């Protein structure tokens, strides 16, 4: 009823007779129920719906001038009547985990969840360690003992009931409440047969090289391809070497002890092989990029394997962009990167931490979305893991974020782009075509028109190293609000410039 009335009020074509007749029938029914002399509880419910009916009636048969649709004339939401009562509810909960075989951890399979974090008044995210919201699919909850636990969402099962794409393969490790558990948390990874040391320089460089190979499209170069294949072989060879060296230690071990021992050897082999793997791939990458060897590449300007912390995650750089930021910037001319925020939402963006976060990240950060929100549409929407920017000129209208120096963001190794909007899954493992995708700075700089899109994984920290050069608000009032929110957070500068120079 309200839908039809609002539709016609908006269209300005008059509420049709059939809607009026339907409303009259509902109204008569409500009146009839009232006349029946309901009990107190029903009376309250009737009063609730009568109030809504009166709001609709006021629009259908207006007495005097009515406000326009966008100035208070829209029939407001007819909320369902809610009352407190005691009822019996049967809830099915997962049974206790079956006894785990010796040497293994018990894993409880349950409906998937997300942590239920919340954003405080100061924009900081916190989580009490317990609150969780429902998600699609299943997850394994593993008790690691001493207040530590792990949650893993498997990849398996690609149907609609499987875990949300943006959660697939994610491992969550939870420490007891309080500070100072970081080192122990990392150590606990060992219980899951994962490498349980803080990231070493070699591991950081390995991640950096792999990301640069992908970002710069080097995987098609024969030398790099061969080096990556050989790197895999190095791990196997190191495992064999370790087995030969330490086989005597296995004498007298029980079956579970043997399994644990073998896994330990594999982890050790991974760690031992890493420096050699890095050297091998660095050399190949160097040659593919015109350097004499890996040493020359490592000493070159822009080569920096140390990841940067940004908005709650790590970002690795692209050495081809970092080597010469001016050269990366030049082809853009007067263009930059833009992101248009809808409606009056700019204030919300800064109130919630000042991170332009992807849908998935927002959930972890406690930025309110609808509870129960499904990602069944994830494949359709093009991925909840990224934020979307466009190449364009400096915006004259807001609310818009603008980076006049595109290299501020394109120096990241995790972006990819399309010349026009791309539809469908962006998951490269989905088997779906990603034809037309580019990671070339020159190609992105040549984008014209508003329909291109450049995707950045997780999001962008607007108050950190990747700050925009311009935050264009939609009105003076919005600017005032944004400035007030930033002042309350103690933010005086954005990207090295005074807040007032950036927020316009």
């Amino acid at each position, binding site marked *: 009823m309200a*839908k039809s009335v609002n539709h016609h009020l908006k269209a300005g074509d008059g509420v049709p007779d059939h809607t009026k007749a339907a409303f009259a029938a509902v109204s008569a029914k409500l009146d009839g129920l009232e006349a029946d002399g309901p009990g107190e509880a029903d009376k309250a419910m009737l009063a609730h719906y009568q109030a809504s009916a009166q709001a609709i009636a006021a629009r259908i048969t207006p007495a005097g001038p009515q406000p326009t649709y966008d100035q208070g004339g829209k029939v407001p939401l007819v909320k369902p009547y809610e009352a407190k009562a005691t009822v019996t509810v049967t809830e099915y909960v997962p049974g206790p985990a079956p006894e785990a075989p010796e040497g293994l951890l018990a894993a409880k399979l349950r409906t998937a969840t997300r942590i239920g974090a919340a954003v405080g008044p100061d924009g900081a995210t916190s989580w009490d360690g317990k609150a969780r919201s429902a998600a699609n699919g299943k997850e394994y909850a593993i008790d690691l003992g001493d207040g530590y636990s792990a949650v893993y969402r498997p990849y398996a099962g690609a149907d609609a009931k499987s875990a949300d794409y943006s959660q697939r393969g994610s491992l969550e490790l939870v420490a007891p409440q309080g500070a100072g558990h970081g080192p122990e948390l990392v150590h606990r990874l060992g219980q899951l047969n994962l490498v349980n040391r803080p990231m070493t320089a070699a591991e950081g460089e390995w991640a950096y090289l792999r990301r640069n190979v992908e970002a710069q499209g080097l995987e098609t170069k024969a030398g790099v391809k061969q080096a990556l294949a050989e790197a895999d072989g190095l791990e196997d060879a190191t495992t064999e070497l370790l087995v030969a060296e330490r086989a005597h230690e296995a004498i007298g071990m029980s079956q579970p002890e043997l399994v644990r021992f073998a896994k330990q050897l594999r982890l050790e082999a991974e760690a031992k092989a890493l420096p050699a793997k890095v050297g091998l791939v660095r050399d190949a990458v160097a040659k593919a990029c015109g350097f004499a060897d890996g040493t020359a590449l490592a000493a070159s300007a822009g080569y920096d394997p140390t990841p940067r912390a940004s908005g709650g995650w790590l970002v690795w750089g692209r050495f081809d962009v970092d080597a010469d930021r001016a050269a990366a910037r030049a082809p853009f001319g007067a263009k930059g990167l833009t992101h248009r925020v*809808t409606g009056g939402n*700019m204030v919300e963006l800064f109130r919630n931490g000042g991170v332009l976060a992807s849908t998935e990240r927002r959930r972890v950060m406690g930025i309110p979305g609808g509870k129960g929100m499904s990602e069944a549409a994830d494949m359709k929407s093009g991925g909840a893991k990224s934020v979307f920017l466009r190449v364009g000129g400096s915006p004259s209208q807001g609310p818009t974020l603008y980076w006049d120096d595109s290299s501020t963001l394109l120096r990241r190794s995790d972006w990819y782009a399309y010349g026009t909007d791309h*539809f469908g899954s962006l998951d490269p493992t989905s088997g779906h075509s990603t034809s037309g995708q580019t990671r070339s700075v020159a190609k992105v700089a040549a984008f014209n028109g508003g329909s291109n899109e450049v995707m950045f994984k997780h999001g962008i920290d607007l108050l950190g190293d990747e700050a925009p050069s311009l935050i264009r608000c939609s009105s003076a009032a919005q600017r005032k609000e944004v400035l007030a929110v930033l002042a309350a957070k103690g933010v005086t500068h954005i990207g090295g410039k005074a807040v007032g120079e950036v927020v316009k």
Partner: protein
Amino acid sequence: MTEWERTLARWLAGGEELESGAELEVRDLDGALAFLAPLARHYRVADGVLWVRPVVGGYEPLEGGLPYAFSLNEARARALPLDTVRLEGDEIVMATGADQVARIRPAGPETLQELQRWDTFVLTVLDAEEEAALDRVEGDSWWGRWS
């Protein structure tokens, strides 16, 4: 207004009680279906680009008593280049720069059902300001309620 745009406006308007609508189908060049969703009832043409809002991100909220809602951050405005736009029978067809072919046509039974849920959400749950913000068909992200 060109013929294809008149056709699009007519499909999107959806009749007296929004009983019809339009859907967007996108296929890769090899013919594989990449995307199918109904289109919200607004569009914008600017600088050689058609802006539409595919209706995605629907879900059943766990609280608030609403039967169905949408993530407005997921249902963001999307762009289709108009360089090759043409009417082909009962379809508006255009090639995208991302090696895909987009077709807009009257909504089928499956997409129409989701579109009607969207209409209910927009017309009865959102306030007029939120609705107007959607109607402008711009914005790469949505913050605040229903994000």
